[in-house]
């Protein structure tokens, strides 16, 4: 409770309106960025000016167009094999999006199913699932990813697999927590009174009410997943060349950073921008959805 100023006469609405415009911006800008990202990922072939893997030994290491020596043909410059940075970045978006989306889907569904089951049924089932979850959470994800890449060879599938294998655990834990809270709710008791089975309660009563925190977690993990995938690619354990990935592009430009900074710079910016947008969006969602959660 704040102390009250005494005001007579008309009220200044300014404060409230200013605050709401600001909050709306924190949604509009990141949403826009992510929408653009998805768009160019889907329509990459139409959007990219050049094929991503087209090499040109004559046009190697061209700087971006706004720097002396650059040309309009390659707005963001070329890398050491003469491939257009912009096009590769666009195709790289495709990789990042598809990996993240797939991983989110797999981890959230597995995690939710396990979380609700553990939370609602309790007892030994809960104990078992939670022990597995604990082990998952302790395991260093990056290490596992690298091990997998080494043993079965790096590929799109390997990356998805390694990120999914441990990625479900945080979901399971979160959803279990939410389920525990809901389990004691009056309407759940009511469902038991009318004779609902456990499965029905989990699906029809618990699940719709944990969607909010679930969505928030999913949104917030977008950024982290893109970062992870980029890290893996950067380290060489991710998507194998020649498929462009932002991470591998950054890695490629590492040794040339003093001479051709643009090779690492632009993909790096892209990573930062997308991660930030994902986080802002997630925060905005959390603020939007949280107070309404308390209507229960």
């Amino acid at each position: 409770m704040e102390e009250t100023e005494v005001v007579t006469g008309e009220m200044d609405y300014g404060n409230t309106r200013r605050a709401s415009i600001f909050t709306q911006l924190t949604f509009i800008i990141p949403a826009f960025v992510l929408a653009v990202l998805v768009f160019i990922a889907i329509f990459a072939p139409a959007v990219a000016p050049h094929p991503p893997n087209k090499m040109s030994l004559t046009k190697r290491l061209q700087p971006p167009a706004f720097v002396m020596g650059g040309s309009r043909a390659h707005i963001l410059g070329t890398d050491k094999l003469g491939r257009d940075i912009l096009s590769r970045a666009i195709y790289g978006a495709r990789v990042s999006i598809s990996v993240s989306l797939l991983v989110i889907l797999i981890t959230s569904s597995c995690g939710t199913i396990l979380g609700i089951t553990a939370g609602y049924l309790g007892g030994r089932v809960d104990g078992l699932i939670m022990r597995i979850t604990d082990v998952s959470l302790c395991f260093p994800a990056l290490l596992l990813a690298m091990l997998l890449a080494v043993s079965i060879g790096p590929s799109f599938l390997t990356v998805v697999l390694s990120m999914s294998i441990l990625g479900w655990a945080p979901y399971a834990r979160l959803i279990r927590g939410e389920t525990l809270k809901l389990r004691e709710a009056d309407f759940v008791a009511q469902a038991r009174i009318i004779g609902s089975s456990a499965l029905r309660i989990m699906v029809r009563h618990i699940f719709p009410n944990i969607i909010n925190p679930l969505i928030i977690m999913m949104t917030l993990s977008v950024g982290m997943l893109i970062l992870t995938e980029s890290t893996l690619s950067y380290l060489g354990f991710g998507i194998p060349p020649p498929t462009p990935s932002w991470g591998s592009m950054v890695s490629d430009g590492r040794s040339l950073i003093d001479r051709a900074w643009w090779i690492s710079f632009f993909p790096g910016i892209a990573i930062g921008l997308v991660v930030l947008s994902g986080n802002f969006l997630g925060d905005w969602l959390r603020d939007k959805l949280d107070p309404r959660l308390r209507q229960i």
Partner: protein
Amino acid sequence: MNKIILQVEDLRTYFFTRKGVVKAVEGVSFHVNEGETFGIVGESGCGKTVTGLSILRLLPEPAGRIVGGKIVLDGTNLLALSKKEMRAFRGRMVSMILQDPMTSLNPVYTIGNQIAESVRLHQNIPDNKVREEVISALRLLKIPAPEMRLRDYPFQMSGGMRQRVVGAIAMSCHPRLLIADEPTTALDATIQAQYIALFKEVQKTTGVAIIFITHDFGVVANMCHRVAVMYSGKIVETAKTREIFEAPKHPYTSALIESVPRLDRKDERLYSIEGQPPSLLNLPPGCRFFPRCDYAMEICGEKEPAEVEIGKDHFVSCWNVS
């Protein structure tokens, strides 16, 4: 003793929300005499809590604003004070007890600590005297063995005890006016009876005036000397407690009293008031009780009735009466 300690004139408190202006308190006037207990009764949403908060100027910012009126406590217009001056008043001259004893106390500090905090803020006494003040506050609220309780944490105490500690914090600086917002709602019936008896004693001992905000008529009957009935942001009737119960003049007051089941006799059928209280966002013209009133006349739907004094210290706002 009929000296007036608090005079509220035409208080208006509005909440400015995105959906519009909520006129929570619209022109409320009443006075409280020294050493008496003044009850404000009404249902949820009628504005009684907001009235109490307005007196203490503790409304949620930026939405809540006092937009008009005067609140004069012992000669000082509280609404004219600066924030700093008001802070000095709060706790020392006027204090408040809230409904939920669970959340009124900070779980991580001992109760001794919390009472001491209030004492230190408002009284310029040396540290070694603070402890004495704390103990005497606890004693005032009849907490047994107060010296031993100083180190207790809130979770170690029962609901009734906690409510007493809250009372001790409120009384620790000997305020002239205490505002109690539904302090007994969360308590069991027998504990409630204890608590009310305790408060009557505290009042006798310290001479503090109490504003008792509640929806429970039983508590009002037991505790208050005078009562104001609020509906939808306005006071509809003010009178001595006995008169309110025996001869209520406002249709809402009488309907409300008739709809409460009695323990001393078997009711065949309870009177129930049809409908719902109006939304404070979209108030219709005229008397706010008009749509639900059994005695409604045409004028009731057009103009709001003015307050009329119909007996000694008995005020009603109703067209049927004036």
